[in-house]
């Protein structure tokens, strides 16, 4: 009887087949895991896992609360997936992920000093949503669009006006018989010199630890004086009488002790200066209340006050600004519409801006809100119950413009050495600015 034919599979063939099958499965799994499902046609409703990257915990609180509120009325149900990292790292990783075309966040907080990195070769236009048309309806009422603009197109929405005002220790001013309404920076310099000679205390500070700190210190006073680093076309305007005058004033301030020169304007040296009562005043933005004063000297609650800054006798503005973070939405993603709606609700409505202020202390960027009764009634406990919007509203009326350039980082490093040299009396302000401009032109090849 003929045996039925049976297919014989050898052990070797079986192993080969098994190996090939395993490789195929593993390969498919690997390819599947490589595929990014976050890009594609935008969703218009439903549950949304929104990836948000930021350097600042304040924004996490703000957007978490806003997303929870918005989920009740919006077609989207938001679930924020937050990644927090240093400002520079957020930008570096964002660009790297954009290069590989996957793993980008839906909503990104771009610290103002990092925005210049997406200004080259229209990187911003390639990866970020353009808000220009939508923001036109707000006109001049929406503050600080320029720092996040490239060729007139706006790619991020500012989180804070970053109004620079003068902070001072009321008790120390009273003890030393210093008037709290000094009209000009020259007056402050005179009073500060006398005070430093008598008590060793200082009335303001300059941070010179990093090129960024040094440039920010100069820029803050320079903007108030009516100068700037770049014009709206991104051309360097540093070489001006205003810059020389400002730096000269700063150098005289450091020389007579009115200004204390700190290597770190936010860290341990600042904390030591504040705690020891060596620094009893400072010219810094509104966010310095939470991140500078309350963070370092919570025990000095009730002793600090704010006022509109003294003016420069040569002219300029009554206020200035420093810092800031713009939030941007990544283009062409499944969550793009949802991210836009969240940002719109949080940053472009009265309710959103009030929530933002209450959650993290960021000032409204809609100018008309400074006369909102709810805001005007706010009293700051750390500042001894002071009605802060009475001061801030006045300052917001005359806020200088700050323009960016793709070469902003180059200018920062070009400024650092010469400005430090001027502040330490090793060179004149005019020479320092000339050296900075020359260094900048060499590095920027312009």
């Amino acid at each position, binding site marked *: 009887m003929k045996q039925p034919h049976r297919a014989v599979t050898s052990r070797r063939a079986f192993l080969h087949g098994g190996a090939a099958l395993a490789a195929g499965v593993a390969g498919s799994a690997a390819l599947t895991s490589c595929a990014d499902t976050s890009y594609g046609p935008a969703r218009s409703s439903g549950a949304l896992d929104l990836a948000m990257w930021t350097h600042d915990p304040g924004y996490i609180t703000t957007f978490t609360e806003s997303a929870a509120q918005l989920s009740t009325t919006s077609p989207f149900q938001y679930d924020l997936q937050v990644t927090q990292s240093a400002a520079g790292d957020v930008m570096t990783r964002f660009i790297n992920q954009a290069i590989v075309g996957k793993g980008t966040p839906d909503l990104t907080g771009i610290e103002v000093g990092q925005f210049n990195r997406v200004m080259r070769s229209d990187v911003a236009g390639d990866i970020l949503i353009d808000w220009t048309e939508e923001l036109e309806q707000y006109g001049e009422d929406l503050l600080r669009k320029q720092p996040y603009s490239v060729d007139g197109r706006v790619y991020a929405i500012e989180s804070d006006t970053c109004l620079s005002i003068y902070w001072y220790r009321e008790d120390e001013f009273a003890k030393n018989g210093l008037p709290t309404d000094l009209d000009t920076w020259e007056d402050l310099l005179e009073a500060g010199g006398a005070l430093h000679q008598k008590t060793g205390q200082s009335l303001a500070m300059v941070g010179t630890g990093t090129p960024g700190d040094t440039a920010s210190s100069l820029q803050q006073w320079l903007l108030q004086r009516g100068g700037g680093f770049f014009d709206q076309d991104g051309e360097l305007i540093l070489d001006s009488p205003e810059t020389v005058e400002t730096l000269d004033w700063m150098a005289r301030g450091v020389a007579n002790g009115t200004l204390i020169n700190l290597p770190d304007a936010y860290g341990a040296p600042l904390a030591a200066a504040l705690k020891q009562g060596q620094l009893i005043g400072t010219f810094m933005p509104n966010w310095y209340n939470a991140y500078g004063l309350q963070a370092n000297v919570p025990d000095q609650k009730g002793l600090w006050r704010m006022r509109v800054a003294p003016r420069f006798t040569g002219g300029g503005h009554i206020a200035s600004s420093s810092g800031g973070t713009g939030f941007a939405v990544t283009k062409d993603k499944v969550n793009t519409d949802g991210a836009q709606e969240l940002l719109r609700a949080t940053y472009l409505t009265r309710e959103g801006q009030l929530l933002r202020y209450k959650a993290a202390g960021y000032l409204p960027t809609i100018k008309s809100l400074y006369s909102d009764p709810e805001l005007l009634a706010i009293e700051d406990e750390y500042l001894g119950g002071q009605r802060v919007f009475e001061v801030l509203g006045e300052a917001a009326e005359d806020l200088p413009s700050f323009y960016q350039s793709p*070469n902003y980082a180059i200018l920062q490093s070009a400024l650092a050495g010469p400005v430090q040299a001027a502040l330490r009396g090793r060179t004149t302000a005019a020479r320092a600015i000339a050296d900075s401009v020359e*260094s900048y032109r*060499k590095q920027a090849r312009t």
Partner: protein
Amino acid sequence: MSTATTPSAPSPTNTHRNDPAGAGTSITASKAPYIFISPFFVLYGLFMIVPIGVGLYLSLTDWAGIGSPTFVGLRNYQWLLTDYSFWTAVGNTAIYVAVSMLIVLPLALLIAQALNARGLRGRDLFRLSYFTPVVLSPIVIALVFTLFYDREFGLFNAFFRGVFGWGGIDWLGDPSWAKLSVVLLVIWKWTGYMTIFFLAGLQNVPRELYEAAALDGSGPIRTFFAVTLPVLRPVTAFVAVTTLVSSAQIFEEPYLLTQGGPGESTLSVAQFIFRAAFERQQMGYAAAAGVIMFVFVFALGRSANKVFGVGSTR
């Protein structure tokens, strides 16, 4: 006589040939060694050769990171050669290399010699102390040293004020002092680490050599130069080449302590590259600087290998 019917010990190849299921595996067998060593070459090619090639290509382009790179030929190299910042960084790096070679190495050897002394108590404690800077987080080191170096409130100036009545050194604000501050940090961080290598080498020097030297009337200094140093030559060569190559690529210390400042007085070449790529989005320019650094460090490493005789049997 027929070879076909002669029984013989079957070679693996013959077995495969006679086995229908193993047809074709003779090729596999001949390639097996290559297959076994291929993972290294595949990974080496993927993660070393390809990036180097891409880096070389990028160095000939103008690229901000997104979009298509624009080919610019040798323009980046041309600009680098006339870039004052780049040469400042090269000069600073040369100082760091010189300090590492001329101070860290001898100091490490001396400390190792001291630790190797007979009858020393708590040797492990010393060893731990010297090794600690290497395992500490660079961020912690930077924070602590920023406090030490602070002009107004720093430990160093406080010490000088307390002892000498004067202490106004602007450690991190003055260009010369800032360089010295970074150099001191480099010495503090790496001397202990190098000491461990020298100590390991010293503990392997045969006792008989010292005994013979003592019998010949050799004093401690003569013994050090006639016995210790020659025997330590392979360790010294390894440590020297490693130090040379790693100090030429120094990044952490100046970046965390001064960010290259004030001005560019402490900027290293590695920082220059980082700054161009990740602060200014000048990827092509950074790649060109990277290529120059690679060539320079490679040449330096090869020369050092020859000078110190690394890998030779001499």
